[in-house]
C-alpha cells in the first residue's frame, strides 16, 4: 500500500476528492547567485548562505474511478480548491519532514498524462520552502531557540515585552540585531520579520525599529541559536524544509 501523505488543499483532505494524490516533484527553490570565479584558482570560490528562489510544486492526482461524472467532479473540486484569489495552503505528512505545509498558487490548468485518470497540477511556492504546520516558540531574555528543518528561517515573529534589543549571531558568524528604540515607550512590540512590519497594539512603529542587517534576522536550520538581549522576547517560528 502506498504511503499516505495525507495531503490537504485549502484545508480539504484530497483523499476525499481523489483516489490518490502525491506531490510528484517538490524540489526546493534553487539557490540565487553564483560562486565567485577567482583568477588563477581552480574551480570557484563558494559563496555561503545564498538566497533561494521560489519553487515549483507538482501535485499528481488520480481521479476516482467509480463513474465518469465522479471523475469530472473531482477535477472541478480540485480547481475550486485552488481557485482562491490569494495563496492556498497545502499540507502533507512527509515521512522525513513530518507534518509540513506550503502556500502556493496555481499556475497551470490540469495537465493530463498517459494515464487518462491521472492529472498534474502545477503550483508555485513563492516562499521557496515548506514549513512545519505546528509553530515553535521560545521565550526568554534571551530566548533559547533550537531550530530544525533544513532551510533558513527569516520570517520569525519577535514579540518584545518592552523596548530593547535582541541580537542574534548565526552559525556563519553573521550578527543581526533588532532593536525597539527607547523612544517608542513601554509596551509590547510585535516584529514580523517575514512581513517586515513592526506594530504595537496594531499600530505601525516603523520609525522606532532599528535593524542591522537587510534580512532583519535569520536562523540557520538544525542548530541551537545564539542570542543576547536586553529584554524578554518571545520568538515564534516554523522550521523550514526544502
Amino acid at each position, binding site marked *: 500500500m502506498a504511503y499516505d501523505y495525507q495531503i490537504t488543499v485549502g484545508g480539504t483532505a484530497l483523499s476525499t476528492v481523489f483516489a490518490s494524490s502525491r506531490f510528484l516533484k517538490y524540489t526546493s527553490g534553487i539557490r540565487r547567485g553564483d560562486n565567485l570565479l577567482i583568477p588563477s584558482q581552480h574551480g570557484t570560490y563558494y559563496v555561503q548562505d545564498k538566497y533561494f528562489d521560489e519553487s515549483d510544486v507538482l501535485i499528481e492526482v488520480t481521479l476516482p474511478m467509480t463513474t465518469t461524472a465522479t471523475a469530472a467532479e473531482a477535477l472541478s473540486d480540485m480547481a475550486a480548491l485552488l481557485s482562491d484569489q490569494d495563496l492556498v495552503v497545502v499540507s502533507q505528512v512527509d515521512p522525513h519532514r513530518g507534518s509540513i505545509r506550503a502556500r502556493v498558487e496555481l499556475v497551470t490548468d490540469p495537465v493530463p498524462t498517459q494515464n487518462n485518470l491521472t492529472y498534474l497540477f502545477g503550483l508555485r511556492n513563492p516562499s521557496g520552502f515548506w514549513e512545519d504546520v505546528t509553530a515553535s516558540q521560545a521565550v526568554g531574555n534571551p530566548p533559547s531557540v533550537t531550530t530544525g528543518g533544513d532551510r533558513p528561517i527569516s520570517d520569525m515573529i519577535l514579540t518584545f515585552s518592552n523596548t530593547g534589543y535582541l541580537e542574534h549571531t548565526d552559525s556563519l558568524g553573521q550578527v543581526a540585531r533588532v532593536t525597539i528604540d527607547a*523612544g*517608542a515607550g513601554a509596551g509590547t512590540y510585535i516584529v514580523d520579520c517575514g*512581513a*517586515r*512590519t513592526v506594530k*504595537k497594539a496594531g*499600530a*505601525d*512603529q*516603523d*520609525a*522606532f*525599529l*532599528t*535593524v*542591522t*542587517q*537587510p*534580512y*532583519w534576522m535569520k536562523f540557520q536550520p538544525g542548530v541551537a541559536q545564539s542570542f543576547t538581549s536586553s529584554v524578554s522576547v518571545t520568538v515564534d517560528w516554523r522550521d523550514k524544509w526544502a
Partner: protein
Amino acid sequence: MGVELRYEAWTLPWKTFQREITDIPVIQGGGSGTIRLNDFGSGTIDVPANYDRLTDIISATKGTLIRAYDGAILIHEFMAERIDFTITEAGGVATISGSDIASAFDRAIIYPWDYPANPTAVPNWVWGGANILQNPGMEDALTSAYIYDVFMGPEKYEVYTTATSGNFTLTMEGDTTAAIDYRAAASTVASAINATTGITDVDVELKFPNADLDALPQGTSGNPWVVEFQDPHVLAAGVMTGDGSGLTGGTLTITTILDPALTFTLSIQAETTASIAWDATTTVVNDRLEALNAVNDVTVSGDGSPGSPYKVTFVDPEVLLGPMFGTGTGLTVIQTQTGSDEIIAGWTKSQRADQRTVPAFHGTYTIFRQSSGAEPAHSGTYSLVVAGTQYAGAQQVVNVQPHGVYQASIWVRTNAASQTFRLVIRSIYEEILAVVGGGPGPGGDARAEVTPAVDTWTQITIPNVLAESYQFGFGLDTLVFRIANVTPTPAGIWYFDDAEFNQGLPETPPGGVVLALMKDAAVDHGADTRGTLLTWVDYSTINETRDSSDTDWFESISFTAFRGATYGQTWDRLASLGYEWRLVPKATPSGGLTHDLEWYGRAELGTDHTAAATPAINVGQGITAGKVVQRIPDRTAVLVEGGAGLYVEDKNTTTETNFGRLEKYKGDTGINSSGSLTDAGEHMLNQEEGTRTAIQITVMATPDHPRPLVDYTVGDELNTQLPPVLAKVGKRISQISYQNTKPARYQITLVEPPTPEV
C-alpha cells in the same frame, strides 16, 4: 489602499476646476511623474491612441490638469501640455506630458512696480536696496595730519676783537682751537673750530657778509663773526669761551646770542611732557608725547638739530584741539602742516542746493568737521561733528530715480538737552516731497524730528520717500538729504552718523516679498489691462510676520524682484537664500481658491517624522534597489556678490581643512545687504553639505508598509536605515518619482536635513 495608481482629468484651477474624466485608461507602467522640493516636477501618461476622449485632454479650446491618485489620496498634478503619438500597426500609444501645476508660476511674470505707468519709471521691486549716500558713516574725510618741527638751538655767538694784531683761541666742549688771526676770514674761523675734536659742523659768517670790509673789517665790533653751531647744535659742556691773550692792542669779546637749554618740554591741550634732552632719540621724544593722555600715537623722525629737526606727525589724534608748544630756552616748535578734517567726503554744511540764487548756508557754524576718533561715533570710528546756530547742519545732494521710493534715516546725538533735530528730504528747489502713505511731516511730507536724550544716539527715520513733487506729482531726479538742528537757541555739540537713503522699500521678511508680489498679480490690477491672475492660489498663510508653519520669520532680507522675470524664477531666487515653498491642492476648494501656496523658513517645510512611530524607511519594507552615494565637496568656500559690488565670503571650515579651498561664485545684483548675501552663501554651503551623502532607493508599493506620497512626501524627514551601508539616521526627501506599474514603483532621493536658522 490600493497598490495601483489611477488618473483623473480636471479642468484647470483658474477655469471651472471640475472633474472631466473619472478614470483615464493609462497603460500599466505608462504613467510616471516627478515631484521635487522647491521646484517644479513633471508628469506623463501613456494612453491608447484610439482612446475616444483624447480630445478632452488635449483640446483646442481648454486646458486639462491630470491628477494621479493612490486610492483616494491625490499624489500629483500636472498639466496636459503636449501629446506625442507613437504610430504603430496596432494603433499606437499617445503620450501626454507636461509640467506640474506649480509651473503656473512660470507663466506669470513680475510686472513693473509702478505699473500701469507707461513708460515705467520704477520697474523693479526693491526691498532693502542700496544706500545711495556717499560716505554715510562719515568715515571718509580729507584730513591732513598736524606736523611739527621741533629743534633746540642752534647755539650762537658773536665774536670780535678790538686788537690791531695778534691771535686768539676759542674753547668749546673742552677743546681749544688753534690760534686764529685777529682778522681771519669767517671760513678760517670755521675751519679752526671744526678742527676741534668736539665739533663736527659749525657755521661762521660775518654779521654783514656783504659789507665793505674796509669800512667794516671782519672780526671787528662792527662786523663780528657770527658762530652758529650745527653739530652739535648745543654745547652741552657749557658756553664757548676764548683766550685773547695773543692779541695786541685789544681784547676778545664773545657775546652769547643763544645758549639753548639742555632739556625742553612739549605741551598739548593743557598737558606737558616730561623733560626731553636736547639730543634725545626719536624714541624718547615719541614716548614722552604718547605718555600724554591726549596723544595716542605720533611718529617722530630727525635728530632734533636745526638741519634735521624732530618731525612730529600726529597720527592719533589726527586733529589737535589746540596747538602744540614747547618750553625751553632755544626751543623752536613750528607747525609745518595744519591738520584738516573739515572736508567730509560727500557732505557739506546745510545750504541752499539751488545755487542760482544767492548761495547761503543755513545757520552759522562754530564746528563742522569729522570727529577725532575719541569722540562719539554710532558705528565705525568717526562721526560728523557740528555746532552752530539754528538750522546749522549737514546735507548731501543725491541723484535719484524719478518717482522712485527711498527709505531715509540718520542717527543723531548731542551733549546738550532739549535739542531738536530735523531730517528733511527736499528737491534742490527746496520743494517738499511726497511720501508713500503719508509721511511724518506736518503735511504728510518727507520730514521728521526728534529731541534726543543727552548723550544718547537716536535715529530719525522717514520711510517711503517718493522722488516726486508733493504738490505737483512730477518726478524728481535730484534730492537733498538734510539734517539740521532746528532748536531756536541751539547749544552743545551735535554728532551725526550712519545716514541711510536706501533705494526701494524697507527690508522685509520673505513673506512680505511673496505677499506683495502675489497681491500684485491677484488683486491690485483688476481694473488695468493686465487684470488679475493666480487668483486660484491661496496665500493667506503667508505674511510679513510668520511663515506658513506659523513660525516667526527669522529675519528681514534685502531682495529685488526684477520685472519681466517669472514668479517661478523669483521663487528660485528666494529659495537660493534658504527659504522653501510648495503648492499643495486644497482638500476642499472654495471661493475660487483651489491650491495653497506655502512658504517656510529654512528646514521648516515638510513634516519631521523622526520622533513619530511611523513612517520610516526601513530595509525590507518594499525597497528593491538603491544606492548610497558619497562624494567629496564640490565647494568649500564661496564668494557671493550682490548689488553695487557688495560681497560676502564664507566657507565651511571643516571641509576646507580636509579638502582644501574649492571655490564657487554666485552673483545676484538684486541683493544689497551683507545679511542677505550671507544667507545666500550659507545656503550654498548647506546645500552642498546636504547632498554630499545622497540616497536613491526604489520602493515598491506594498500594503503593509509606509507608502510614498501617502504617508510621507517631498520635504519630510524620516528615519532611514539601509544596513549594512547606512545605519539608521534622519534623512530628508528631496524628490520622489513614481510609476504606475503593478505594484506602483517609486524612486526616492534622500539628502541631509538642513539646519534650521538659529
